[in-house]
C-alpha cells in the first residue's frame, strides 16, 4: 500500500495517469462520439432520422453502433497511396493533426486542485502561447497532406488551408490579448482562477465572456476557422475540391484525419470553456463554504464537461446553420474585419484597464 502511494507521488507517474485520464477517458471518447453526434445532430436540425441502421440483433442503440461499424469498416478498408505521391510526407501528414489535437489538452485543468494534486497535466508558464505553437503544427498536417498527394484538388486544399490557418492564427492570438490583460497572465491556472472573482459583490462572475465579449466572438470565430470547419471549410470544400487536402487518403489514415478534426472540435470547446466560461469554476459555489471537497471536485468536472459539450454542440450547430464562406470571403473577413476589430479590442481593453483599475 505504501509502495503504491509512493509510486503515485512521483510526478512523472502522476503526469502519465493524468494524460491517460484526460486523453483516453475524456478527449478521445469525446472526439469519437462527436463523429457520430455530428451526423445525428445534423439530422435533427434538418428533420431527418440520421444513422440508425447498424445493429447487433435487434439492438441499434439509436445509431450508437455506427461508431463501431465505422471504425471496423475503416480498419478493413484498403489504404491507397496515389501514384507519384511522396511516400514519407504522405505517411506522416496525419500525425500532425493528431498531435496538435491531443497536445492541446495538456494545459487544460478539468477540476480545481486538491492540495498539491492538480487536475491538469502540466501548468507551464507560457500557457496559452503553447496553444498557439501547437495549433500552428496542424497547419503542417494540411500542407503536407496537400503537397504530398500528387493531386490537384489536394494541393488546392492544402494551399487554401495554409493561407487560412496562418491568417486566423493571427486573429486568435490578437483576440486573446484582452484575456491576458484582464487576468494579467498567460498561465492557464491563473486565468481560470482570475475568472473566479465576482463583480458587484457576488452577482456576476468575472468570466472571460463578460470581461471580453468581443474577444470571445473573435476567438471563437478564429478557432472555428482553425479547425477548418464550416462556415470556413473552403480548404475542404466538399462541393468543389471534394475533400481538399486529405482527398487521396483512405481507410484508417483518413480516419486519423477525421478523428483529429473532431478532437480539434473538442479542443476548441475546452479552450473556450477554460478561457471564457470560468474553466472548472462553478459559479457561486464559494458561497457554500461547508461543501465537501469530493463534491466540489465532482461538480467542477461536471460543470466543465457540460460547458465543453455545449460548445461542441454549438460548433456543430453553427456548421449546419451557416452557409459556407467563399475562400476570398474567408480571407477578407479575416484581414479586413477581424484584424482591425481585434486590434481595436486590444487597445480598448488596455484603455479600460488603465483608466478604471
Amino acid at each position, binding site marked *: 500500500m505504501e509502495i503504491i502511494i509512493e509510486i503515485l507521488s512521483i510526478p512523472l507517474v502522476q503526469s502519465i495517469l493524468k494524460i491517460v485520464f484526460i486523453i483516453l477517458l475524456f478527449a478521445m471518447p469525446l472526439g469519437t462520439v462527436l463523429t457520430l453526434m455530428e451526423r445525428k445532430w445534423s439530422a435533427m436540425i434538418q428533420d431527418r432520422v440520421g444513422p440508425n441502421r447498424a445493429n447487433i440483433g435487434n439492438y441499434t442503440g439509436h445509431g450508437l453502433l455506427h461508431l463501431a461499424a465505422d471504425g471496423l469498416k475503416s480498419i478493413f478498408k*484498403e489504404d491507397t497511396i496515389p501514384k507519384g505521391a511522396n511516400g514519407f510526407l504522405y505517411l506522416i501528414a*496525419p500525425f500532425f493533426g493528431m498531435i496538435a489535437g491531443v497536445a492541446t489538452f495538456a494545459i487544460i485543468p478539468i477540476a480545481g486542485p486538491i492540495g498539491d494534486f492538480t487536475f491538469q497535466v502540466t501548468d507551464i508558464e507560457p500557457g496559452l502561447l503553447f496553444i498557439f505553437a501547437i495549433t500552428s503544427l496542424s497547419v503542417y498536417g494540411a500542407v503536407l497532406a496537400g503537397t504530398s498527394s500528387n493531386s490537384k484538388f489536394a494541393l488546392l486544399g492544402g494551399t487554401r488551408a495554409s493561407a487560412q490557418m496562418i491568417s486566423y492564427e*493571427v486573429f486568435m492570438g490578437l483576440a486573446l490579448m484582452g484575456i491576458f490583460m484582464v487576468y*494579467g497572465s498567460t498561465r492557464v491556472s491563473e486565468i481560470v482562477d482570475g475568472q473566479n472573482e465576482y463583480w458587484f459583490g457576488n452577482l456576476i462572475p468575472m468570466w472571460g465572456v463578460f470581461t471580453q465579449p468581443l474577444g470571445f466572438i473573435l476567438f471563437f470565430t478564429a478557432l472555428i476557422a482553425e479547425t477548418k470547419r464550416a462556415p470556413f471549410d473552403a480548404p475542404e470544400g466538399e462541393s468543389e475540391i471534394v475533400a481538399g487536402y486529405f482527398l487521396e487518403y483512405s481507410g484508417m489514415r483518413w480516419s486519423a484525419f477525421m478523428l483529429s478534426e473532431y478532437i480539434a472540435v473538442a479542443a476548441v470547446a475546452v479552450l473556450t470553456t477554460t478561457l471564457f466560461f470560468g474553466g472548472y469554476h462553478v459559479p457561486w459555489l464559494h458561497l457554500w463554504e461547508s461543501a465537501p471537497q469530493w463534491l466540489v471536485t465532482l461538480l467542477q468536472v461536471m460543470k466543465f464537461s457540460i460547458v465543453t459539450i455545449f460548445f461542441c454542440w454549438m460548433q456543430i450547430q453553427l456548421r449546419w446553420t451557416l452557409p459556407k464562406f467563399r475562400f476570398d470571403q474567408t480571407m477578407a473577413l479575416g484581414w479586413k474585419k477581424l484584424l482591425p476589430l481585434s486590434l481595436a479590442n486590444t487597445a480598448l481593453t488596455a484603455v479600460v484597464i488603465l483608466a478604471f483599475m
Partner: protein
Amino acid sequence: MTIASGYLPILLMILLGMLLAGTFTLVGLYLGPRLRNKVKDAPFESGFIRDGTEGSRYDVKFYMTALVFLVFDVEIVFLYPWTVQVRELGWFGFTAAMIFIGVLVLGLAYDWKKGALEWE
C-alpha cells in the same frame, strides 16, 4: 517544478499523439486489403483523365498572405509581454504599444490599398 519537468508531460502527450496516429496507420496498412490497379493508383480528379502536373506553381496571393502573416505574428509575439504586464507598465507602456501597433496598422493599410488582401 523545474522547467524540464513541466515540459516532460507535453513531450509525453506529443508521443501519445504520434502513437495514436501511428497505430491508425499501421492498423490500416496491415489489416486492409491491397488490391492495386492503375486506375485506383491515379490521383482523383472527379473522373477526368489527368492532364498536366500540378508542379509547384502557386498563386502569388499565398505568398503575400504568408508575408502579411509573418509581420503580424511577429507583432503579436512582441505584444504579449506588454499585455501580461499592462498594469505595471501603465500609460507609458500603452503609448509605446500603441505606437508599435500604429506602425503596423499603417503597414496593413498599405497592404490593403495595394490590394495584397484582395482575393478575386
